[in-house]
């Protein structure tokens, strides 16, 4: 995998982005600015467009950008296919990835690896050693899918990490492993000079117990209605629900 200009500051900008899916307008003029080393979280009720935003950033053709643009490190990537975005350093964790028959997890990991990645030891860290020879995602439990996705991302080592509900369907024990892997992906244990950035969709906010976020956004009906301190936002959502967030802008 190529990582051009590794040293250059990564910067993902989503400008006034509107997206439709199968003719239905989902996102309306979304703006986001994720700078080098930052982690942002995205809150929002079901159906508010959180996954759509991630998928549009990754560039899947089903998610059609009708206006606005996505800019990565100064380059307009709005119309690049997903593999080109991956090559430029965007990596996504799928919530419900498909099974690919006959392709083992080990093969999958080596397909997305940069050179010199030690697959075995990464897999051991995620308790996935025994899964390496299995068909990717075939018969994996919720927690196993998360760990398998993180294993692939760790091998891919993206500069921009997009995570779709990393804690959903994961029990407490696995949550620790998942949290640790995400910290590693986002270089959370570096005190300074972090170069990775992340955008994490979270429903419950549990992930914030493991991964500190710099900024939170609340997405309602396809629009970001609030950006600010993620802990305060979570507190507010827990207490008053998303309805209050939506009302907040009016």
């Amino acid at each position, binding site marked *: *995998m190529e990582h051009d200009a590794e040293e250059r500051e990564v910067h993902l900008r989503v400008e006034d982005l509107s997206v439709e899916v199968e003719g239905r307008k989902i996102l309306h003029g979304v703006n986001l600015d994720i700078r080098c080393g930052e982690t942002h979280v995205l809150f929002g009720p079901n159906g508010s467009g959180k996954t759509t935003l991630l998928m549009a950033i*990754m560039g*899947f*053709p089903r998610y059609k950008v009708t206006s606005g643009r996505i800019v990565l490190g100064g380059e307009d990537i709005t119309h690049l*296919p*997903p*593999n080109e975005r*991956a*090559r430029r350093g965007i*990596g*996504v964790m*799928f919530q419900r*990835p*498909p099974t*690919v*028959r*006959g*392709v083992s997890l080990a093969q*999958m990991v080596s*397909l*997305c690896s940069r050179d010199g990645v030690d697959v075995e030891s990464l897999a051991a860290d995620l308790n996935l050693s025994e899964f390496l020879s299995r*068909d990717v995602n075939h018969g994996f439990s919720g927690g196993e899918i998360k760990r398998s996705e993180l294993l*692939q991302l760790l091998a*891919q080592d993206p500069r921009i990490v997009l995570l779709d509900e990393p804690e959903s369907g994961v029990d407490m024990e696995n949550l620790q492993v998942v949290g640790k892997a995400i910290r590693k992906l986002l270089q959370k244990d570096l005190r300074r000079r972090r170069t990775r950035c992340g955008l994490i969709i979270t429903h419950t906010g549990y992930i914030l117990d493991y991964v500190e976020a710099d900024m939170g956004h609340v997405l309602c009906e396809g629009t970001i209605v609030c950006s600010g301190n993620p802990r305060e936002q979570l507190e507010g959502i827990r207490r008053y629900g998303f309805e209050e967030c939506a009302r907040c802008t009016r």
Partner: protein
Amino acid sequence: MHALKELKERARTAAEKPAPYGRDLDLRAYESEAPERPYVESLDQLEELGEEDLARAGVEKSGRQRSGSFVQIDGTVVHRKALEKGLEILSTREALEKYDWLWDYYWKAVAVDTDKYTATVELEPYEGYFMRALPGSRTIYPLQACLYIREPRFVQRVHNIVIAEEGSELHIITGCASEREIRAGLHLGVSEFYVKKGAKITFTMIHNWAEGMDVRPRSGIVVEEGGLYMSNYVVMEPLRSLQLYPTARLVGEGAVARFYSILVAQPGSELDVGSRVILSAPGCSAEVISRAITRGGFIAARGHIRGEVGGVKAHLECRGLILDEGGVIHAVPELEGRAADVDMSHEAAVGKIAQEEVEYLMARGLSEEEAVSTIVRGFLNVRIEGLPPLLEREMRRMMELSEEKAL
């Protein structure tokens, strides 16, 4: 000899009997005559076929890592030799002369009056191999057999008999191939397999015919108590038509049959490939698995499992991928339970490559083309259980060779 007369009589009654599947072929359209070829004591003396020709048929000319070889070109057996103790390789006609008891196996696993193709193999001159593993013998290396067609319009008739005696193991790699430029030709192959108590036969077949070839194998397998028969059947190269529906009869307690078929139909090819297992003793089990891909050709993927007694277990799986317009995949899985306590299941799926899978791989950095190729190779990558590692490596290697050209 009375029995032989009766066989001929039965064959004559079936001489015009068409097969239920596959296009009907006019046997009069083919030539029975082909030049005699000289016999060679060792494969490296074989001038008729080069290393590459043989490699296409899965045959290692050096004979390295093989326990013996059989090569037939058109109607002549040009080489047959067993290199390890406990193994026998002869031409079927030689074997019938040598062993009187062999007549008890002759046309016992396949009925001579199955159709006009079996009938003509009995009524007209034929060759073919006899392979036998003596009781308890186990070889590390597989036997290799090659049936090759060089003469245009030739009809190659073979009658093979394979016997794994009690407690023995026999691994066979067979390649069927022809000259590339052959516009028409017919291969009729009768194969009878006998797996004795506690014995094991694995049979790996790679086809490499020319575009004008028609192929009609007719195979029957009898598996006794605790025996195992396993077939790996790979067809990826173009040919005109192929039709077979081998039947394995599991007659002893705990007998096992496994059929794996990997089929790729090129435009203009018709593949009608089925596998049938009849489970007639308790504790028997069977697995019939096929993967079919069409690049524009026609594939019928059939399977039939019949459970005749309780306490048997079987699974049938047909998966098909249509990669190109004009391609047809017709999956016909059949389950027939004849006792209350049978456990039989099937699953069949035909469709195109899931876009979701392509995108998943693209998100990891693969181009669309790379993603499709990874998915297709994965689709064909059936996990074959029970094949010795050496044979599995060989099979993978041969499959990769074919895949490169076919996909």
